[in-house]
């Protein structure tokens, strides 16, 4: 049974900030690649929706290993939001792309922070 683990240095990040973490895998055969995806989903009164904002592909050269990553979160994404009718939630999903086998995946919820201050001396 393939195993995948995802550890994030912090579970929150500002838009435009960096998210550091470590991914480790232990599979029967070498994955073709490891895919990290920044995904959003909605919760609340309306129909649940989800999508992927972007992906990062990491090379993989062994069936077992560990890799560190530092992800730049796009600056224009909406922050995590919990409203009365609509909630917007973010997560990092890691996936080991295995040839001729079901992919192995794991995800971690993250908070994209919305309360930020303008740069000192800015507008």
């Amino acid at each position: 049974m393939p195993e995948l683990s995802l550890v994030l240095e912090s579970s929150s990040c500002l838009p435009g900030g960096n998210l550091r973490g470590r991914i480790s895998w232990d599979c029967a055969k070498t994955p073709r690649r490891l895919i990290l995806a920044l995904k959003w989903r909605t919760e609340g009164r309306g129909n649940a929706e989800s999508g992927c904002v972007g992906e990062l592909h990491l090379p993989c050269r062994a069936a077992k290993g560990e890799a560190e990553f530092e992800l730049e979160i796009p600056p224009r994404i909406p922050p995590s939001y919990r409203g009365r009718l609509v909630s917007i939630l973010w997560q990092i999903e890691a996936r080991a792309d295995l040839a001729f086998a079901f992919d192995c995946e794991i995800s971690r919820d993250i908070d994209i922070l919305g309360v930020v201050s303008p740069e000192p001396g800015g507008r």
Partner: protein
Amino acid sequence: MSVLRKIDLDFSRPSKWAGCVIPFGLAFLLAGSALIWEILLHPGLQRLVSSSWTAIPCQIVRSELVKKPGHDSWMIARLVYAYEFKGRKLSGSRIDFQSELIGLGGAGEAQNLIAEYPLGKNTVCFIHPGDPSQAVLRRDWGAGAKWFVGGFGFLMALAGSAVSMQGLRPWRSVRRKENLPPVLLQPDRKSTGTWLAWLAGCLFWNGILLGLLICWILKIRDQGFAWTDALAFLFGAFFSVIGLGLLFAAIGASWDFLRPAVKLLIENGAVIKTGEPLRLRCIDVRQPVRLELICTEKAIWNDTRSHSDEEAEVMSISVGELSDDGELRFDVPFDLMPSFKSQCNFITWRLRLRSLEDAEKPALDDSYPVELIRGGSPCPS
């Protein structure tokens, strides 16, 4: 540090498989366009060009019913006519400019043609003055069926375009939101279509009622009052109540549509950035007004039988007050939730303008939709 690939910030984008419908849409578009060309445009153009052709005498030298090539039971008229132009003896077989696709009249139409142009008949044909070998017996461009078949082609092309456009949505570029020109915002009131619909409905319903009332009065005047007239009166009274309701609705819609409004001149195409100053110029302010920035959530949900939605106003921020035409400056807080739009979940912003007098029921209460985006440069974590 790694950067995400293929960043996609269009949250209302439909499934990537939506593009699969493009070939179907294009096939319909092409088929419909080909039908329009073949049935309407090409014969119509030929008819237009032939209006300058020369009419000369000709004689029918062959007139018979023949089987259409490749069809055992489809009979068509075969007419050949001979004519002379500047000493040259020529012949032609083109009857009219109608497309063969709508030559569906069958044997009956073919027999009528044979009867109209029997062998040996002297008649008139039209020839191209520059190329006399091009001739036509009649300058018609098709039967009435052309409008039906051409209309079908138009519908096909329309449906094909709509499907293709829908399929192209995922590839459309996201609207640029920087350095847009200023726009003059009108309040978000009932659309012209809604107003006209109320007006037309009211005029139609009450017009019929008025016509019936006049007929009823004339009948009573000529024939006297009968007990059936009392029934008609009661029946008419019920419909008059609906007519009155429509009248009030139409007056309300007209007032809402036509009443004077304050216009807002807003920078950057009504796209407001958080953490940046917002400058607004208010035009046609006739009474003291207050401006607020309002955030609304909207959720849409479907189950197997119904489609429902709900809206909730979740935040209101005072922008400022004005008692005359002038400019307002407002520092938009940095920590506001930007506008969000997916297929079923929305976070929207609008500027609400209300008169200061009579807070319970203000004389002026209009909304101006705006888009809020994240501005400035957030500090790195």
